């Protein structure tokens, strides 16, 4: 258990906090919060996977600036662009899910006058 594995552990703990919100809290808004935290955790894990240390310098984003002359340095040092592309997609997906969830929550509020799922019939179990 070396120190460089710690970020993964903390991200997993964030995941547990999100799951806790979904399991324990009986409120639509808290479920939205929990799912958002889950998404942060998994996105962070993905970006952590792609990070590459550049000794003595700031991490290099995979964006070429200043023309083709800088390309070899970028190839040698930049962080992995692929997980970033995946996370971009994942952020959009979680935004979509949140939008739908908010729509459902609004309709449920309209029916019951509360966000509390204890007061809804089918969600108790």
């Amino acid at each position, binding site marked *: 258990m070396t120190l460089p594995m710690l970020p993964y552990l903390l991200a997993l703990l964030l995941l547990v906090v999100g799951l806790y919100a*979904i399991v324990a809290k009986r409120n639509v808004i808290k*479920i939205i919060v929990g799912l958002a935290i889950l998404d942060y955790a998994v996105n962070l894990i*993905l970006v952590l*996977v792609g990070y590459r240390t550049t000794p003595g310098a700031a991490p290099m984003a995979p964006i070429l600036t200043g023309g083709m002359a800088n390309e070899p340095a970028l190839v040698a040092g930049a962080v992995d662009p692929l*997980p970033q592309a*995946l996370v971009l997609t*994942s952020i959009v997906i979680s935004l979509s899910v949140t939008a739908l969830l908010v729509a459902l929550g609004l309709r*449920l509020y309209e029916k019951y006058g509360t966000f509390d799922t204890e007061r809804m*019939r089918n969600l108790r179990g």
Partner: protein
Amino acid sequence: MQKLLPLLVAIPLAGGFLVPILGRLTGTRRGAAVLPILMVAAVLVLSLALLAGPDETLVLWIGGWEFPIGISLLADGLTRYLLVIVAVVSLLALLFSMDYMRQYTSPSLYYGLFMLMLAGMNGVVLAGDLFNIFVFIEIAGIASYALVAFGTEADELEASLKYLTLGTVASTFILIGIAVVYNVTGQLNWAKVAEAIAAGGGPSMPLYVAAAFFLMGFGLKAAMVPFHAWLPDAHPSAPAPISAMLSGVLIKACGVYALARVVFSVFGGSEVFGWVLVALGGASMVVGVFLAVGQWDFKRLLAYHSISQMGYVVLALGAAAVMQARGTSEAVVALAIFGGLFHLANHAIFKSLLFLCSGSVEYATGTRQLKLLGGLGRKMPVTGACLRIAALSISGVPPLNGFWSKLIIVLALVLGGFYTLAVITVIVSFVTLLSFAKVQRYVLGGEPTAAVEQAREVPAAMCLASLALAVLCFASSLIILPAVKSRLVDPAVRVVQAGPPPRAKAPPRVVAAERPGAVAAQAAVPPARLERTSP
């Protein structure tokens, strides 16, 4: 041939984008179904053409990118088999929707979401890339969350909320699995991941963690028993054709197919995975059926049976993996896989028929409480006959398709030495029969009740869809004939049985990858880009 693969996704996607716009412009109600039906018919024709084509693994690298960078579409025997099942059920569900959805408002939104769900399922089945599977599962999933809530009654909204929450947790697990796999192997294309795992000497500890996340994620999507809580709420709440789609094909394409793909083709289906699948499948089979017996809501009862019947499929596949690891003869392993895949198709047919019949009953009487129904056999002869056929089929009464697939599963279990499991399977089948005897007694038998007095046969399109599925219940029994079996199911069985690429016994054959303006490079395809093909 592989040039056609993107169309299987692009056509329903275009439908999903265009139908809501056209609905705004034209505003017709029944006409909204015409474009989707034409498009799904085109998808069905394409799927059948693929199934009829030569049995080889088609690989298409999208956009001319190749390994290791791009995404590939991949169609092997298992893919084609599922594509046809999805297209058939979708077409008939759409046909049923034409009249059934007149009870609901905004048909163009409904058909748009329907097409997007279909695009998502086709995308999952065709994807050759783990992350791509995730994206298309999300498309199918989000469309189905919205469709479950389509009636916007309180029950439906709650069911959708529960489904959405658990579905999103499942997707998150899948994504973590992908992150670990990418960290460890550096690949996302599942065929390449499988190669990397095999080259590294089988799954390592971190990969077992990834597999656990995949199992939880896909298990949630497939509603296997510890993860089944959402299904009995979500499936009954949707409009009947959507229930048919969800139970009939969605849990298969996004759940069982993806599970089988990851377990068998990526992680190599070792004994550990086999026992996990046996445990999941066995628990689902037993728990699902005993929960179903006590139900008085027609559709809820059917939903519990979906859990139970999918248990059969997963149990058969898991048992096959265990047998393979134990060195049971290849023929028995193939028989178990065949039983599972055959039952998957049969379940798609009879469960969607059952849900369509429940929709017809609800359409005609306005209720789906078994205690309020009765005597419908006389009032609605066509629906009654279809319901009877489907009920006999799911309970495994010969000569219907359900009997044959259950027989093959039991036979394979006995031959493989799983005597206890075989007995449990038979018992579950009897309980299923009992449960459907109750359905027939309360829905069809007896005197017409007050709710049924006014009932009459449903419109022709709905009857037609039900009848077509009822005919398929008989027709798919023909799959046990060797000539039909070797054409339709055997390629799929071989894919599952072969496992990841290194275990494939077939000699590699070049499938020319599509690369525009690179004819010269294509002439000299390096060995690393050879694709695995079936014999």
